[in-house]
Structures are given as C-alpha cells and as structure tokens.
C-alpha cells in the first residue's frame, strides 16, 4: 500500500526514469566499496596550476596514504585486467591530480591526451574521488557529475553579441564593438542597458546583419 502511494506520488514519467536508471550500463565491480557521502564538497582541480613531477630537479616526496589513495582511485577507474578497447583504457594513460584537505585525499583521474592517440576520443570522461586516509572511497563523481554545491561564477554580465557573431572569438567581438564606436563593450552598464552599435540600448538592433 505504501509502495503504491509512493509510486503514485512520484508520477508516471519520474517512475519510468527510476526504472530506466536501473537499466543503465552495469558498473564494473570496484575492488573497494564506493561510498556516497553527498556532504563532501570537491575542490576544483582545474582552476589552479598543478605541480607536475619532473618539472624541477627537486625530489618529490609522497606519503603512503596519498600513494594508497591514488592506487585506489586508479584501480577503481580502470580495474587491471579489464578489456582494453584502445590505449586510453590503461592506467598509465591517465593523469592523476591530488588535493589533500585534512583527512580526505581528493584524486582526479583523467585521460592524458598527450600519452597516445586513441581510435576515438571520449568527451567528458574521467572521475574524481574523495578517499579517506584509511583507504575508503567516501564519494566518487564520474565524468562531469556535479557534487551538488553551486559553483561560484565570477561577476559580470558579459558582452552582448549580435547573432552573426555567435561562436566567434572574444577578440572578434571586441573588434566589432570597437568598430561600432563602443570600445568598452563587455563592461556592464549599471542603469543604461547594454551597449549596441548605434548607441541605443539592447533590444533595438541586436541581429547585426547576416
């Protein structure tokens, strides 16, 4: 009875989604249980310059728990002995980034596209792990899966763009506005609307030609 009311309250489409979600590709079995602690917020692995091994002559020292975390992530992401389609399915073809925050070691695994030339290229692959110092996977995010916390986007509205320049480079668009006599396009105007080539306001001539 309870299940029926749950099903009813979920609604048809959502229920179908639930069923379908059980029909997704079955995951490979991980050698380590994968937790799902949704309170763990992942650091951004891409917005700071990582330090690469070999960049300097100085030796790099890695403590055992960090090495253990990298090994756990590597073996979960690509279990040794699983079928290899091409060169990107190897552990040595990945890049591993590590950020330690207290007792949690965050590991990012992503294909190193300079390692080899695969037959096809995977968009949005990779995985991120939160691993405890005692070797448990506390949380795993696959591909671009969000951690549920909002990303802090920098302020600024950006530059209004005529339709014929959608997809063009930043410099092309700046040049367009400069030619139109609006050299500071891109700086949001507080109360005057967005700049347009004829000096009017946004919404009057945004299609800008072909």
């Amino acid at each position, binding site marked *: 009875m309870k299940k029926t009311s749950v099903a009813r309250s979920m609604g048809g489409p959502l229920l179908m989604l639930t069923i379908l979600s059980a029909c997704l590709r079955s995951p490979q079995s991980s050698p380590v249980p994968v937790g799902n602690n949704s309170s763990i917020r992942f650091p951004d692995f891409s917005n700071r310059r990582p330090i*690469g091994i070999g960049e300097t002559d100085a030796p790099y020292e890695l403590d055992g728990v960090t090495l253990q975390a990298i090994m756990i992530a590597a073996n979960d992401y690509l279990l040794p002995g699983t079928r290899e389609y091409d060169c990107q*399915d190897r552990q040595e073809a990945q890049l591993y980034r590590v950020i330690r925050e207290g007792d949690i070691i965050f590991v990012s695994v992503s294909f190193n596209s300079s390692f080899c030339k695969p037959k096809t290229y995977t968009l949005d692959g990779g995985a991120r792990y939160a691993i405890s110092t005692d070797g448990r996977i506390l949380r795993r995010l696959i591909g671009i899966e969000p951690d549920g916390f909002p990303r802090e986007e920098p302020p600024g509205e950006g*530059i209004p763009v005529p339709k014929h320049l959608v997809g063009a480079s930043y410099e092309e668009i700046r040049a367009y506005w400069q030619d139109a006599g609006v050299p500071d396009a891109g700086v949001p105007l507080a109360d005057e609307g967005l700049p347009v080539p004829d000096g009017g306001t946004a919404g009057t001539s945004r299609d800008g030609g072909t």
Partner: protein
Amino acid sequence: MHRCLPVLLLLSMGCPPPKPIPGVVRPGPREPFLEKLPGPMPGVGPFDSYSDALMATCPLILSKPNATAGRVGSQDFQLRWRVSSEYCAWLYYTPDHKYEMSMLTDQARPNLGDRKTCDLPPFVDDPRYPATSLKYIFALHNHPFEDRLSDKDIGFIANMGLIHGFETNTRDGNVRLAAIAFFSNSNDFEHPSCDGFFEFIPATAEMLKWTHSQGDWGMRRVGFVRQLPTGGYFLEED
C-alpha cells in the same frame, strides 16, 4: 496492485535494448566504436554560417532523450542526471561553402556505470564529397547541466587540431576549430530551451561562456586554458 502491474511486468522482462533515436547512430551490440560519423544530418542545414548552425543545432541536440538534467539542485536533478546522456557530432564545412552537421552519436565506454561521456569519432563520412575536402569546424556536444568544458574536452579538441588543423580557410575568412558544449537550465525536458554553451578555441586558448535569453546572446570569457609539461590542462580564470 494493478497500478504496479506494468512496472512489475517491465521489470520482469529485464532491461530493454536501447531504442533507436532519430538522428543518432551507434554501433551494434558487440561491434567496435564508430570511427567515422555519417553526414549530413537529414533535415538539418546546410547553413550559410557557423553562427546559424550553432543556433539551430543547440536546441536540436538538447531535445534528444535525456540530454538535459535541468539545473543543479532542482527537484529530481539527481535522478535525471543518472539517466542523462551526452550526444556528440561534428559541424563541418563543405566544398560548396556550406556548414553541415553530421549525424549524432551517443556511443560511450562502459567502464564505469553511469559515466556521462560521448566518444566522438575523429572523422565524418559524407558520401557527396571526398574525405579530404571536408573541413572540421566545431565538435558539438551537450552537457546535461551548465558546466564548463572538461579537461577531456580540451584534450580532445587539441588533438583534433593536430589532425584537422586549428584554423580553416572559408569563403568568409578563417574559422577556428572549437569544442562546444550546449546546456539548458530548463525543467521542460521535452522541449528544453537552449540557454547557451561553453566554447574552447585551442588556437587562442580561450574558454568562452555564451548565454542565450529571450532571443539575445551574450558572451563572457571564462579564461585561458594552459597546458602543463605533463600533458594536463588548467584554466587561468579572467
């Protein structure tokens, strides 16, 4: 009990094979990945400009089944994320000076369970033209939510630049190769709005965010992507 019958029946039948999706090609069971994508997409294009093509292909790709999971944190996002899919295709330039979209694919590696990826073949096969006459402009795909291009997207398009060139000479001037990730923040999953896209242009190292609202387009430079000696990438935000 009778209300649950269709569900129980469905479950007892096991999980069905993936249904064909119009405009989407994928390898058959136990077949290797497609290494070329057929083109053009029937009923789409040709386009006179890449801008026209982007504005047309954005809603088209986002309207494919489960192409968007909505806004992060919205109701049912986690469930919709779990069933979401990525689709990818090429936008290419033909000897007839037109822009064409290839067929889409959603082929993906099964290594980890619900990995949201798309394996985009490096080449397009358009039987109307010699293979070497096609010029590759944009690698198109969707992100199921608003998110920047990933390191894999960046690595992919950088490698494609080495194969196809980072700039293409067209009748209207030079066009730079780029990776595009469309997104929608809509909760209308049947007809999601095209709310914008992220673009990475390897020739300039720029990552741009494009937004689309009420017919108007805007753009902000997110930053510059830098490559490390190890082969990885990081973003220097503006």
